C-alpha cells in the first residue's frame, strides 16, 4: 500500500528525469594568458553555495569542460593557476534563448580574486558544519529512539531521510508549494511513512519474535529495496530541492543563504521540543521507560506497542524533516540518506550509544569535522572525515564521549 502511494506520488519525478537533455547543464571554457596563449594544467572548479560540484583541468589547448550540473542556478567558476585564483560568477537559466551549457573565456591578465583568509574560511565552514551537525542530530535522535524501543539498529533509517528529501522536492519543485509549507508536508508524509513501516513491517516481525540480527539483516534488505526504488523513480541525478531564493545573509566574514539560518532555527526548536517532551511529557517519559526496561514498563501499565508506534511515527517525521533541510543545504539525490546514515552512526557512537545529550554533541562534532576538514581534504572525500572520527573514537574510547565506562556488550 505504502509502495503504491509512493509510486503514485513520485511518478512525475521519474518522468521529469527521463526528459532528454535534462542532465546537460554545465560550462565549457578556455583559459589563456595575457598574450592569448592557452594555459595548460590550470585547475578549474565549479562551486554552488560554497560546495564544489565539478572539477576539471585544462588541456594542452587551455580547454576545460564541466557538465552534468544539477540545473539552473548561480555558480562560481574558480580557476587556479600559477598560485593565483580567478573567480567568475555565472548564472544558468532555463530559457529559449540561452544554452544549458555556457561558454566562458578567462584570462590570467584579469585581476585575481581576493583570497579569503584561513580564519574567514574556518568561520564559514564552522557555520556550515553547525548546520550539518544539527540536521544529523534530528535524524540521529529518531535512530536512537527506535534503537531504544525496538532494540535494533535500523539500517533503513537513511532511506527515511531520502524519502523526506524527495518528498520535499516533489512538494516544492513539482507541486510549487512555498518552501516552508513543502517542508511541513514532507515531514507529515515522513511521519506517515514511519507509521506504515511499523504497521506493515516491524510490528509483524516483533510479533513473530525474531532476533536482533534478523532485524538488522531485514533492515539492510529494506534499505536496499527502498534505495533502489528511489533510484528507479528519481534517477541518478542531483537536483535542488527548491527554486526559491531567500537571498544571503552576511554575518562578519560568514556569507550563508538565509535558508541555512532558518534551517538551524528549525533544528534547534525541534531538538528542544523533543528534549522537553522526553523529559516532561507523559508519552516521552513512557518512551524512556520502555527503552530502559520494556518488560517492567509493560508491567507498570504502559502500552509498549503504542509507545513503539509513536516512536516510529516521530522517527519517520524527524528523518523526513532532516531530509528536507539536507536537501536545502546540499541537494536531493537518491543516496543522500544513506550517506547521512553513516554520519548518524558516527554521531551516535561518538556521543555514546543510548545517551540523548551525547547524540546531539556527537552530531555537532561530526558535522563540524565533516565541513571543516573540507578545507584540507578534497570535497569528494567529504564524508571520510566524519567517518574517520568514528573509527578513531572506537579505537580510543569505545564508550563514546559521554557514555559510561562499562562493558558494552
Amino acid at each position: 500500500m505504502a509502495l503504491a502511494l509512493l509510486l503514485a506520488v513520485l511518478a512525475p519525478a521519474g518522468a521529469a528525469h527521463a526528459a532528454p537533455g535534462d542532465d546537460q547543464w554545465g560550462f565549457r571554457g578556455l583559459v589563456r594568458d595575457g598574450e592569448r596563449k592557452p594555459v595548460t594544467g590550470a585547475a578549474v572548479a565549479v562551486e554552488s553555495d560554497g560546495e564544489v560540484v565539478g572539477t576539471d583541468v585544462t588541456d594542452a589547448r587551455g580547454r576545460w569542460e564541466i557538465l552534468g550540473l544539477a540545473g539552473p542556478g548561480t555558480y562560481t567558476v574558480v580557476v587556479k593557476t600559477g598560485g593565483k585564483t580567478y573567480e567568475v560568477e555565472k548564472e544558468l537559466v532555463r530559457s529559449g534563448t540561452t544554452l544549458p551549457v555556457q561558454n566562458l573565456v578567462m584570462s590570467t591578465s584579469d585581476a585575481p580574486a581576493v583570497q579569503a583568509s584561513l580564519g574567514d574560511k574556518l568561520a564559514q565552514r564552522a557555520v556550515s558544519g553547525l548546520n550539518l551537525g544539527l540536521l544529523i542530530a534530528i535524524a540521529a535522535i529518531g535512530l536512537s529512539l527506535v534503537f531504544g524501543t525496538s532494540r535494533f539498529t535500523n539500517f533503513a533509517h537513511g532511506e527515511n531521510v531520502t524519502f523526506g528529501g524527495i518528498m520535499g522536492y516533489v512538494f516544492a519543485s513539482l507541486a510549487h508549494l512555498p518552501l516552508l509549507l513543502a517542508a511541513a508536508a514532507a515531514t507529515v508524509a515522513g511521519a506517515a511513512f514511519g507509521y506504515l513501516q511499523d504497521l506493515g513491517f516491524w510490528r509483524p516481525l516483533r510479533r513473530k519474535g525474531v532476533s536482533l540480527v534478523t532485524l538488522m539483516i531485514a533492515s539492510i534488505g529494506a534499505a536496499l529495496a527502498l534505495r533502489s526504488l528511489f533510484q528507479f523513480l528519481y534517477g541518478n541525478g542531483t537536483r535542488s530541492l527548491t527554486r526559491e531564493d531567500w537571498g544571503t545573509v552576511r554575518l562578519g566574514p560568514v556569507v550563508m543563504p538565509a535558508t541555512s539560518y532558518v534551517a538551524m532555527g528549525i533544528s534547534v526548536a525541534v531538538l528542544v521540543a523533543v528534549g522537553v517532551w522526553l523529559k516532561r511529557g507523559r508519552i516521552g517519559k513512557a518512551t524512556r521507560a520502555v527503552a530502559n526496561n520494556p518488560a517492567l514498563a509493560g508491567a507498570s501499565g504502559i502500552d509498549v506497542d503504542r509507545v513503539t508506534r509513536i516512536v516510529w511515527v516521530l522517527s519517520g517525521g524527524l528523518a523526513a524533516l532532516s531530509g528536507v533541510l539536507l536537501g536545502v543545504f546540499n541537494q536531493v539525490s537518491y543516496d543522500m540518506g544513506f550517506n547521512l546514515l553513516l554520519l548518524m552512526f558516527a554521531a551516535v557512537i561518538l556521543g555514546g550509544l543510548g545517551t540523548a545529550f551525547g547524540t546531539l554533541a556527537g552530531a555537532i562534532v561530526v558535522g563540524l569535522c565533516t565541513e571543516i576538514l573540507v578545507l584540507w581534504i578534497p570535497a569528494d572525500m567529504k564524508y571520510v572525515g566524519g567517518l574517520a572520527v568514528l573509527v578513531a573514537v572506537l579505537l580510543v574510547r569505545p564508550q563514546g564521549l559521554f557514555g559510561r565506562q562499562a562493558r558494552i556488550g
Partner: protein
Amino acid sequence: MDWILNSLREIITPTTAAYALAAIGLNIHFGFTGLVNFGQAGFVAIGGYGFAISVTQLGLSWPLAIAVTLLLAVGYALLLGIPTLRLRADYLAIVTIACAEIIRFTLNSSAFASVTGGANGLYNDYSGWITGANPYPQGLVHLGPWTFTSTDLWIATVDWAVVAVVAVGVFLLIRSPWGLVLKGIREDEHAMLSLGKNVNLHKLQALVMGGAIGALAGILYVQPTSVQPFDFASRMTFNMYTMLILGGAATVFGPILGSMIFWVVMRFTDELVNAGVDAGLLDNATQGSQLRFVLVGAALVLLVVFRPQGILGNRTELSFDAK
C-alpha cells in the same frame, strides 16, 4: 528458451565464482562465528585495487602482488577487529559498513586519481599472468549450448578451481577444533569463555580469515574486467548476504549455491527488463536494473524472516534466528 539458456550460463561465469568466494569469506564471519560484517565489499575492494595497483604501478610479479594484497586485507581486518570485536554486535556492523564506504570514497576520489584512476577506475593491464597461461584454443569455445570466449572460460576455470580449494579448506577448518570453537562462540560466547577459550582472539582470527578470502575474491573479480569503484558499493555486501542466506549460512556449499542461483535470477530478470524496454514498458535498461535490486532487497527480507536457514541450512544450527 534462449532466455533460460542465457541465464543458466551465469552458473559458471567468473563473476559468479568471485561472488561465491567472497560469500564463503563472509560465511566464516557471519555463518560460522556470528560476526555481523556489513562491509565485505571493503575487503573485495582492497583485493581488486591492491592487486591491480601492485601489478601496474609497483610492477610487482603476480605472486608477490597477491601476497601484498592479502597482507593489506589482514592489516585492515585487524584495524576493524581490535577495537570492535569486544563490543556489541551492532558496533562491528556499523564500523564495517562505515569503513567499506571510507575505502570506496577514497578510491573514487579525484585526489588519488593518479594511482586509483578516481571515478573511472583502472584499465585492465594486470591480467596478463592469467590470460598468458591460457591453454584453451584461441577464439570462441563451445561448451554444451553455450559459447564463451577462450579468455573468459579460462578465467572461469581458474576461479572455480580457487573456489573449490578454498571450500575444501573451509570444510576441513570448520570440522577442526578451531572451527568448533568458532561455532561455540556463535552459540554462546560466555560458555566458550568459561571453557577457557580466548573468544576475542578466535573472533579476530575468523575476521582476518574471512577478510583475506574476500580480498582473494576481489583479485579474481577484477581479472576479466576493469576495476570500477562503483562495483564495491554497499550493494555488493547486501547481494552477498542475499546469496548466503539463500544458499544456507553456516554450510560449506551454501554460499556457492547461493551465488549461482543469485546470478541466474539476476540474468533472467535482466532479460525480462530488456524485453520490457523493447516493448516500451520501461524507459531504459539502467532504470530497469534498479527495479531488480528492489527485488533483491525484498528477497533478502523475506528469506531472513521466513526461511533463515536457506536451501541447504539446518534451522536448529542457526543462532541468529534464536529468540
